[in-house]
Every structure is written in structure tokens, then in C-alpha cells.
């Protein structure tokens, strides 16, 4: 047989890591050809489910008359808790505090009581409204204040972080102050609402298409509710129309009800709630009240911080434990507190069960930290940016005992670049010149005032639930040299699939078009973690690379033996493989390896090294590394109405060595605007009966195109490879940029402060709606005596 090796023309690397490849689905998105679950061609006999919901927020369900529901046109079945063959329990924390259907105790308005299954979705929706519930109503606990007043029941164990003697630190501080801040929640408003399609198979098998960030958990929950083994349930998701954390646990309910109905009726069942129901049923970002005491000196140096972060968690624990933990993990942001105590208060309330949302408590923690800085700045009369710089984590602690690099959870900050990022941005955006110009212009402008602020971000990367930091992948190489890639991560728009495909293409030296990205399914990669905590490409990229390396090692061993060269003399180059002095096409090598009976499929696995966390002790190394960034925002406010506009934003963000700068830029811009919405116009309002009044886009206002900054300069920090050996030295980018938007809050605050000659701290709470801005203007003016 002739030697298959030959001289090949060098090819340029395509689809390789670090290039700005477009999203793998972009061409399908724009043509309406990308298939979401509601677009899947209806299986024969498809039925539609609709949830029947509670009319009260708190109390007892005395009776539930479903006769009219059953009798409604098109209705096939009505399901209640009594119809559940397994457990009426979808508590993701296994605290048994989250039933599928409430039976007696009602814990929030619009809590699911039953499901009706009908021939059409419309028939199901019409029928669901016919239920007659009789309730014994109790007073609902709605927010942090009323929860505390009612005794402060918690949904889960609180956390305390403590380092140094905070009481002594406060006592010894030259100056002290106390304050409180309200930090609002946020609706995810993923454009595709929750949805699940369940198709029963033979025996106990169930195939569930679920719009979920966590297929493995959906699998476990469906199995638990149906009373079958996990091996009977397959959960699949090709893409979500947005997730943002809202489909980490909140998709369980919809998948379980669809599967329950499919099992009962032995027919495919789809459940897609109306937008208003989705917003009324599912959890949101936690709102907090942060009470703080700060010790500091006249130079603006913080000596001690004692803070309590109390969160409205809703009616069950869900992820409130780790969310409130992460708030405390970010109560320092980039700043060193010589003595610190942080305590969480995860409060039970009769509202939706608040859940994961991009940043996962971190943003709220960090908003608190920036308030501490602002308080110190106004108390000392120093410029807030100067106070920020003076309190940054320092270098290392070599030889000096505890240095300025130890976090409240006793992890040493080893990769601190906050100072450098701030300095670069301050220069590149002409911060000082603009600040001076704004002050000058404000003096001449009685109504419209401008403000500017620069705030940094340091965000810890890793799940604090350490066991979650693992991932699996499955890679098949076919004999024509094409590759099928599967991993445990889910695609919600963030570009995970294309990033991991780039890793695989680069590993084999093949073009991106030769890698087929396939839907995430529990049948291919088991026991996966949620695609969350910004970890998607860190974990799955490494797992996929691991699988590639396994296959490559087999190919190397094969080629070394076949052509009698040393393994070290074999290299995968773009489009070809060098074997000794000769080269062979990837496809030809693969073909030869198949003929040589070499396995061309492999699984890959990755577990993040270095991390550990002892929650009881409040000590450990929970984060593998930190992602950094900084943003400078300039705003204009109208002091007659409180209306405002973001005029300019400059961002410098640390993606390490970016896997895909275009995708990363999209995450930064999108995260920023989403964060800006959270802190400005997105306001959740519950009435005194515990009913959410902002349950549709008509009343809940996320940013629109004209809200984005007038001038928006986004740069990725260059020459900044991750100091840890992450996938190609990149850094996670999903969540950190959201917190860059804190700069907008502080720019608004700066503009408000101008009406009091920058002497009175505006203490602007969030969301800083026009109403809140106007109230702050009026208060600052009054306190300044102007």
C-alpha cells in the first residue's frame, strides 16, 4: 500500500481559538430557521397543558372545584397532586419545600394547583380559568421588611463571613457611619418563555425537550416526579431563547408537568405558559436590603465593615442559599477591608421563589460595596474614584502576616489587576478632564445635570458548590474527518457552542465547518452541571479538549507505529498532520486509523483544580480565579422629572486570552445593558395582597435600543492571559460584565450630588427609576440647605 502521507500545502488555520467567529446559529436565527421547542413539528396526538394557579398569596386551600375545568370544551384531563406517581417534590436543594402542585398550603400568588390538558393550548388556557378555589386566606409576607417584622423566618441556613475583629476594628476607626440600602430584584425576561415538550416512549421512557440550563436536574426531577429511574428519562435542549439564570431551576416545573401529563395520557404533551403566567410563577433576581456600618479614616481608608445582606427569597429555598452566599463573596468587590463581617439573611416571603440570575447575588453584594465606598467618599469629601483606589486589594502578603490581599472568606487574591485596569481606563476615557468639564457645565445648567463615575469589577469564577465544577464531553471523529461534538453545556445565546467548537477545531487542526455541534442531551453526556456561574466554556471547553486529546493520542500512537516515527515527531497542524518529515491530511489519517481499528470516539472530563470551600468555617479557596473589568459611565439627569439618559460608557474588560472576541464583546455589551436595566428602569412591584403588578413587558421595562449608551466604547483587556491554566488561558465572561453597569448607578448619583454641591451623599437606591432619582434630588437639595 502506498504511503498516504504527502506534502500538503500549508493552510491557514480556520475556526481556531481566538478568532471572531460568528455564532454558529446566526444564519438560522436571522432566517427564522433556528428551531426552538415551540417550533418543533408537533408529534402525532400532541396535547397542550396549562397550569391552574392560586388566587391568593398565602393561606390554605380549603377546596378546589375543578368540575367546570373538566367539562370545558377540548379538555382531556385535569391533573392534581393526587395524580403524581412519584414525589410531589421538585426542590432542587432536596429540602422538600417545593411541590409541583400545592395541596393545602398556599405560599405565593399564582402558585400552581393543578394542570389541565386539552386538545389545543387555547382550550387549556380557557379551561384553567374556570377552577373555583375556596381559600382560607392569611396575611402574606411580601418583602424584607415585612418578613423581618413577621419574625424573620429563613428559607435556608444563613452564612457568616468574618475576618479580623470587626467590633474592635470599628471601635478603633477614626470615623464610623451606618446606613442601609435597598437593592431591587430583576425579572429575567428571556424572550422565549419557559417551555417543555414531553414525548412518552415504551414502558417508562420519557423524552423531554426542555428549555433549560440544567438538563441533568430536569432529568432527575422528572424521574422523581414520575417515580422512575433517571435512566428512563432523556432531556434534550438544542438552544434556549435566553436563560440568564431563569432556566437553571425554574424550568423543572414545566418539564415535570408536561412529563406527568404525557405519562398519564400516553400522548405527547407541551406546556408553554403565557408570558404573564411565566412572570407570575417563576423566580427572579433577589432584592436585598443591605444594612452596613463602616469604620474609616479621613484619608478615605476603610478600617472595618460590618454588613447584613437580607434577601427576599420567596416561598422556598431554591438557590437562595448559594445566591445569598455569593452576595457576601462580593461584598468586597475589589476592596480590602482590614476587619470585616458579612452576614446573610435569606428570608422566607410569600412571593415567587427568587432564583439564579446572571451574577447570582454577586451584583447585589457588589452594589453594596460601591455604596460603602461612596459613603466614605462623601463623608471625607474625597473623590469617589480616589477612595476606590485607596481601598483596592494590595500586592502580596509576603512576610507581613495578613496583607492587603485577603478576602473576607480568607482566599488570597493572587491575580489582582484591578488597579491596572482602572488606571488604563481612567486614561483612555479622559476621565479626569471630563469630570472637570462636567462640574463646570453643571454650574451653568440649572435643570439638566451630568454625572460621571468609574467603577471596577472583580468577580469570582467557579461554582461555590465545589462539586458542580466538573464537566463531560463526547467527541466522535467520523471516517471522513468530520467531527461530532457534544458536551454538557447548554446554548442560551451566549455562544458556548461555537466557542467549544473552536477549541475542538483547533485541537484537530480542522475547519470549524467540519465540527457539528449537537443538542445537549442527558443521553450523551450524563450528570452535568447547570450551564451557569459563567463556567460554560471554562468547563466544557476543557472537557471537550480532553476528549480531543484522547483521540489525538490514539492517532499519534497509531501513526507512530504505522510510519515508524517517534510520537514527538507527530504534530497536528492546520488542516494536516505532520508525521516525521512528511505530512498527511487529517481525513486521510483518520481513515487509515479506522482501517487500523483505532477507536475514534472519546469522552472527556474536567474538574476545576485548586478550589475548596468550608462553608461552616467561612474559609477556603472557592474561586479558581477572578475576572476583572472597569467601566466609566456618564449620564444626564433632569432634576425636574428625574428622567435620565446614559450619554457615554467606556469599558475595559478582562476576558483573559479571549476564545472569541466577537462573542465576548457581545457578552460585555449585552451584560452591561442588562445590568443597567436592573439598576435603572426595571422595577418589580408587588401589591399588598402579594400580587405581582409588573407581570408583562407593558409594565416591566427592560432597556430598549434608545436606552443603550449614546457612545459605547468597549475594549477587551489586551495581553492578559489568565494566570491559571484555563482553556487557552481565557476567562469566563457570562456574568462579570453585568456588574460594570454599577458605574451607571454611580454616575446618576454623581449627577444627583451636584444639586447639593457634592456635599450630601445621594444614597440612591435601586432600581434608580426617574422617581427615585427625583426623590434623591429633592432630598439632597433639602439636606444641603439649597
Amino acid at each position, binding site marked *: 500500500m502506498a504511503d498516504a502521507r504527502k506534502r500538503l500545502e500549508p493552510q491557514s488555520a480556520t475556526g481556531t481559538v481566538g478568532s471572531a467567529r460568528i455564532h454558529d446559529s446566526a444564519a438560522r436565527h*436571522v*432566517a427564522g430557521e433556528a428551531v426552538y421547542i*415551540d417550533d418543533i*413539528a408537533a408529534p402525532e396526538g400532541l396535547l397542550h397543558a396549562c397550569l391552574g394557579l392560586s388566587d391568593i398569596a398565602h393561606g390554605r386551600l380549603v377546596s378546589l372545584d375543578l368540575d367546570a375545568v373538566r367539562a370545558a370544551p377540548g379538555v382531556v384531563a385535569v391533573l392534581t397532586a393526587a395524580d403524581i406517581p412519584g414525589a410531589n417534590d421538585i426542590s432542587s436543594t432536596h429540602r422538600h419545600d417545593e411541590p409541583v402542585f400545592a395541596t393545602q398550603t398556599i405560599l405565593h400568588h399564582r402558585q400552581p394547583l393543578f394542570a389541565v390538558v386539552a386538545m389545543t393550548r387555547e382550550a387549556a388556557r380557557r379551561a384553567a380559568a374556570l377552577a373555583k378555589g375556596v381559600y382560607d386566606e392569611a396575611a402574606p409576607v411580601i418583602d424584607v421588611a415585612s418578613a423581618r417584622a413577621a419574625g424573620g423566618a429563613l428559607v435556608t441556613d444563613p452564612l457568616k463571613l468574618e475576618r479580623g475583629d470587626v467590633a474592635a476594628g470599628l471601635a478603633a476607626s477614626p470615623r464610623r457611619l451606618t446606613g442601609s440600602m435597598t437593592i431591587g430584584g430583576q425579572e429575567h425576561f428571556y424572550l422565549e418563555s419557559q417551555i417543555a415538550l414531553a414525548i412518552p416512549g415504551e414502558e417508562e421512557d420519557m423524552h423531554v425537550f426542555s428549555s433549560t440550563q440544567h438538563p441533568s436536574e430536569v432529568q432527575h426531577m422528572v424521574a422523581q416526579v414520575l417515580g422512575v429511574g433517571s435512566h428512563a428519562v432523556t432531556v434534550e435542549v438544542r438552544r434556549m431563547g435566553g436563560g440568564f439564570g431563569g432556566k437553571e431551576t425554574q424550568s423543572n416545573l414545566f418539564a415535570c408537568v408536561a412529563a406527568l401529563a404525557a405519562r398519564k395520557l400516553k400522548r405527547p404533551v407541551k406546556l408553554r405558559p403565557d408570558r404573564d403566567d411565566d412572570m407570575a410563577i417563576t423566580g427572579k433576581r433577589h432584592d436585598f436590603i443591605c444594612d452596613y456600618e463602616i469604620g474609616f479614616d479621613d484619608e478615605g481608608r476603610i478600617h472595618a465593615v460590618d454588613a447584613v445582606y437580607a434577601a427576599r427569597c420567596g416561598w422556598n429555598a431554591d438557590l437562595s442559599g448559594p445566591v445569598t452566599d455569593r452576595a457576601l463573596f462580593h461584598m468586597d468587590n475589589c476592596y480590602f477591608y482590614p476587619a470585616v463581617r458579612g452576614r446573610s439573611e435569606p428570608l422566607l416571603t410569600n412571593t415567587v421563589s427568587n432564583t439564579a440570575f446572571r451574577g447570582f447575588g454577586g451584583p447585589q453584594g457588589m452594589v453594596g460595596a460601591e455604596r460603602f465606598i461612596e459613603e466614605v467618599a462623601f463623608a471625607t469629601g474625597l473623590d469617589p474614584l480616589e477612595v476606590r483606589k485607596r481601598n483596592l486589594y494590595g500586592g502580596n502578603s509576603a512576610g507581613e502576616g495578613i496583607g492587603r490581599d485577603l478576602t473576607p472568606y480568607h482566599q488570597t487574591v493572587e491575580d489582582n489587576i484591578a488597579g491596572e485596569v482602572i488606571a488604563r481606563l481612567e486614561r483612555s476615557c479622559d476621565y479626569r478632564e471630563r469630570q472637570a468639564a462636567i462640574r463646570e457645565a453643571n454650574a451653568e*445648567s440649572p435643570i439638566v445635570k451630568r454625572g460621571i463615575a468609574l467603577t471596577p469589577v472583580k468577580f469570582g469564577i467557579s461554582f461555590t458548590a465545589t462539586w458542580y465544577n466538573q464537566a463531560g464531553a463526547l467527541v466522535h471523529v467520523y471516517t471522513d474527518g468530520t467531527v461530532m461534538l457534544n458536551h454538557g453545556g447548554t446554548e442560551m*445565546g451566549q455562544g458556548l457552542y461555537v466557542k467549544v467548537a473552536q477549541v475542538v477545531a483547533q485541537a484537530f487542526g480542522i475547519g470549524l465547518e467540519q465540527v457539528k455541534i449537537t443538542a445537549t442531551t442527558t443521553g450523551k453526556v450524563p450528570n452535568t452541571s447547570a450551564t451557569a456561574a459563567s463556567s460554560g466554556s471554562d468547563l466544557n471547553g476543557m472537557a471537550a479538549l480532553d476528549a480531543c486529546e484522547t483521540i489525538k493520542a490514539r492517532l499519534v500512537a497509531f501513526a507512530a507505529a504505522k510510519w515508524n516515527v517517534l510520537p514527538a515527531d507527530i504534530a497536528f497542524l492546520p488542516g494536516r498532520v505532520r508525521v516525521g518529515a512528511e505530512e498527511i491530511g487529517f481525513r486521510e489519517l483518520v481513515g487509515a486509523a479506522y482501517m487500523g481499528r483505532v477507536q475514534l470516539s472519546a469522552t472527556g472530563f474536567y474538574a476545576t483544580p485548586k478550589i475548596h470551600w468550608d462553608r461552616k468555617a467561612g474559609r477556603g479557596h472557592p474561586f479558581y480565579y477572578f475576572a476583572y473589568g472597569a467601566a466609566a459611565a456618564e449620564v444626564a439627569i433632569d432634576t425636574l422629572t428625574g428622567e435620565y439618559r446614559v450619554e457615554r460608557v467606556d469599558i475595559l474588560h478582562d476576558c483573559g486570552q479571549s476564545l472569541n472576541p466577537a462573542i465576548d464583546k457581545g457578552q460585555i455589551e449585552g451584560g452591561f445593558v*442588562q445590568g443597567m436595566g436592573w439598576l435603572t428602569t426595571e422595577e418589580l412591584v408587588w401589591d399588598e395582597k402579594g400580587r405581582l403588578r409588573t407581570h408583562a*413587558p407593558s*409594565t416591566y421595562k427592560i432597556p430598549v435600543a434608545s436606552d443603550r449608551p449614546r457612545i459605547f466604547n468597549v475594549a477587551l483587556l489586551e495581553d492578559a492571559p489568565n494566570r491559571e491554566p484555563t482553556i487557552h488561558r481565557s476567562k469566563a465572561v457570562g456574568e462579570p460584565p453585568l456588574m460594570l453597569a454599577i458605574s451607571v448607578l454611580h454616575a446618576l448619583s454623581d449627577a444627583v450630588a451636584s444639586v447639593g454641591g457634592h456635599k450630601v451623599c445621594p444614597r440612591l437606591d435601586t432600581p434608580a427609576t426617574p422617581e427615585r432619582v427625583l426623590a434623591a434630588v429633592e432630598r439632597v437639595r433639602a439636606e444641603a440647605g439649597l
Partner: protein
Amino acid sequence: MRDTLRFVLGDELVEIASCDPTLTVLDWLRLDRRMTGSKEGCAEGDCGACTVVIGRLDHGALRYEAINACIRFLPTLDGCHLLTVEHLKGADGALHPVQQAMVDCHGSQCGFCTPGIVMSLFALWLNEDAPSVSRIEDALAGNLCRCTGYEPIVAAAQQMYRLGSRDGFATRRISIQAQLQALTDAETLSLGGPEGKFIAPASIETLADLVIAHPRATLVAGATDVGLWVTKGMRRLDPVIFLGRVQALRLTEDRGDHLRIGAMATHADVRPALAALSPQLDELMRRFGGEQVRNAGTIGGNIANGSPIGDLPPVLIALGAKLVLRRGNEERRISLESFFIDYRKQDRREGEFVDAVIVPKPEPDALLHVSKISKRFDEDISAVCGAFLLRLGEDGRIAEARVAYGGMAGIPKRAAVAEAALIGRMWDEAAVDAAIAALPADFTPLSDMRASAGYRLSVAGNLLRRFLIETTQPCVETRIAGLLAEASHG
């Protein structure tokens, strides 16, 4: 009488003999036609994921506009050309320049809002060349994207014009126009479905007769509110009388000292005429809903609906507008403010419909002010909308004051006590202070999810201050966003 609905879907003439009156265009596309490119994001006309483009004959000319398919009833498309995201690719499968620009600029992430964004940009592409960034933002105001932050989408809207200037739709325009003309007739469309009847007369006389004959009918114009009665309220409407085929109702006429606006004129239709009265009115119209709502929602609907927070009534009241109501051949003219009796209760008698609004043009020396305050600047409903008209006497004193607000009471309402406080005063700070002091006597606003009572009252007063500053100190910057800010920034 015609009993078959006819419209053109892409290249295909669609004829439907039985159809429920409130079947939405989106449900028809997705469920009946299995065209799943258009998405349902909210089912209330706010997110724009369902955006499609319709072509219709507007006094003989073919006009394309983006609308929300989720709240548009299918039978209202009679005589229209319907284009969806599925129609944009070329025959060779090549992406349309709008689509290609979105791909090139990384304009999609999760992709769910994308078909709607593409269709809004496609409507812009069809109608305008080289739009400004602020015009692009207006065209996108009715499209929510939760992933991108819009930056790459706005970039795509600029890029698309660089990828070619013509497409298959431009070349087919004449044939489509002829096709739609062939579908235009004077017959009343009367369509039956299992859930009810849809009646769409072609003349105002027939309409007048039908409204009398069907006193319980729901009159539908743009359906931007009635659509929600169906998608959210799950109401069955039977029969539905659709006003959209009556061309006479769509006319906006400049009659020298006043405008006569037909009830079926859309917000987009009337914007130029109102803009000519005042740049602030232009800005108010720009901020009305999203582009899709401005293309569908009508002046008559906005009034007849009786919303306490409708954006137009306050300014129309300030201008002294009159409403023309018609019953059979009888016409009744009343002042607009007297039309609003109480929360969601209007002075519309059985058998009557809103025919037109008569809007007197303000005298050249009159001072007019319009401000809309909302949580989000664009595509939001007002917390407070204020519209003020002052006429100063020769002595410089206020001779006439019309101070109207939306959002301050159960109906759009004039502030009679504040007006009285203004009359006879010089137009100065003391006058504003007096009017502000009077406002609590005029209004006891509610607190709701849009704003608190306190904020409403504060802002209502501060808008009078803004009015004073804008009329007496034009150099002072008072507007931070929108057309008025752009104008003052040069």
C-alpha cells in the same frame, strides 16, 4: 357581501372562507401554516418577536409597515400583502441584506427576538434610505432584545444599506400593487367562524348602519388594545366590526385653522400633521408605543378606548379638540374633555362610533407645551402626561389657560383650579407656584406600578416649571433625550 377573506402571503393568494374573528395572525402563521419563524414573546404587542410586515393600499399607493402579529386579527389583513421572516431569503437561498448585516454584525445571540428585529429592519429598509441612528432606534423601539444590548443590531441597521440597495421586493412592487388593487372591492366582508362573526364594511355609510344593527359588536381599529382582551383576557368577541377598510376614516385633512383627523388614522399617519403644530407634539408621537403600535394603533382607538393614560387625549384637550361622533347619518360634536366621563366610561351612545377628531391649531402667539414622563423613555406608558396651552393678553397677563394631564385621575382631565390660579397673572415663577399649589385641589392621583401619587403630583407641578423655563429661558437645557434634546444639542 363577500364571505371570503383574501390576502397575499408572500407570493401566494390566500382565501379563507371560515375564520374566527379574533384568530391572531401569529397563531394562524405558526399553527395553521406551520410557519414558525415569527415568535411569540409576550402576546401583547410589546416585545416585537412576532413582527411581520404588511403591505396595504393607502389611498391607492402601496405602503409597507411593520406590525405585531400577536395582537393583529387575521381577518383584518383583508386586501393586504403579508411578509414574514420566511420570505426574505432570495430564490437562490442567499440571505437578504438585512439578514446578512445582522449576521455580519453579530446581531443575534439567543436568536429568539431576531426574526422580529429582522422584520422591523426590513420595513425600515423598504421605506427609508440612510436613516439616522435615532431613526433606527425609533424603528426598533418595539423590539425587545435581552441579549445583545442592541449595539450590534443598530450597527446592522447601518450596515444593511451597504450590502445592496435592491431586492426582489422592490422589483415586485408594481405587481403586488396590482394584485392588491384587484382584491379591493366595495363589498362588505362578512366572515363567519365557529366562535363568531367578523364584519368589515368598505364604506362609512355601511359602517354606520352596521353599528346600529349590531349594538353589542366590538368595534376594532388597530386592535393594539382589543388584541389583549383576547390574548390575555381570553375574551370572545362576537361580532367584530372592523373599521380598517373604510378609507374615509383614514383621512387626515388640514383645513386651515384646524385639522380633521379620521378616527382610523394611525399614529404614524397623523404624526406629520401634528408635528407641524409643535416639535413637542412631534416628540410625543415619536414616543407613542413602538413602531409596530404606531403603525396599527389609531387616533380614534386611543380616544374611544378611554384609557386614563392614553397619550393623546391630554394634548388634544389642551388644544380644545372636538370629537365627531356619528350615528347613522347623524353627527354629534362634543368637546373631547366631555367625552371622558369616568374611569373607562365615555359618552358614546348606542349605535355611535367615533368618526373624527377636530383639532384647532394653536394661535401663533399661543404657548404650547407637551411632556410625557414614563419610567422608560421609549415604548412606555406615561406615568404623567402634561399638555398646556396658554394665551397671553396684550398686557402680558395670562388670558387663557388650558392645563390637561393624563395619569393624574381616572380620565384625562383638565386642572380647573390650577387654570384659574393662572388666569390674570403674568407668566412667571409666581404664576407657576400658584398653579402648583392648586394642583392638589384638582387631582388625587393613584400610586401604582408606574409611579407613586407623590411623584405624579411633584412631576405634574414640575412640568409647569419646565414650561415656564422653556418659554422664557430658551437657552436653558431642559430635555435630555429624544428629538427635543437632539434639537437643542444642534
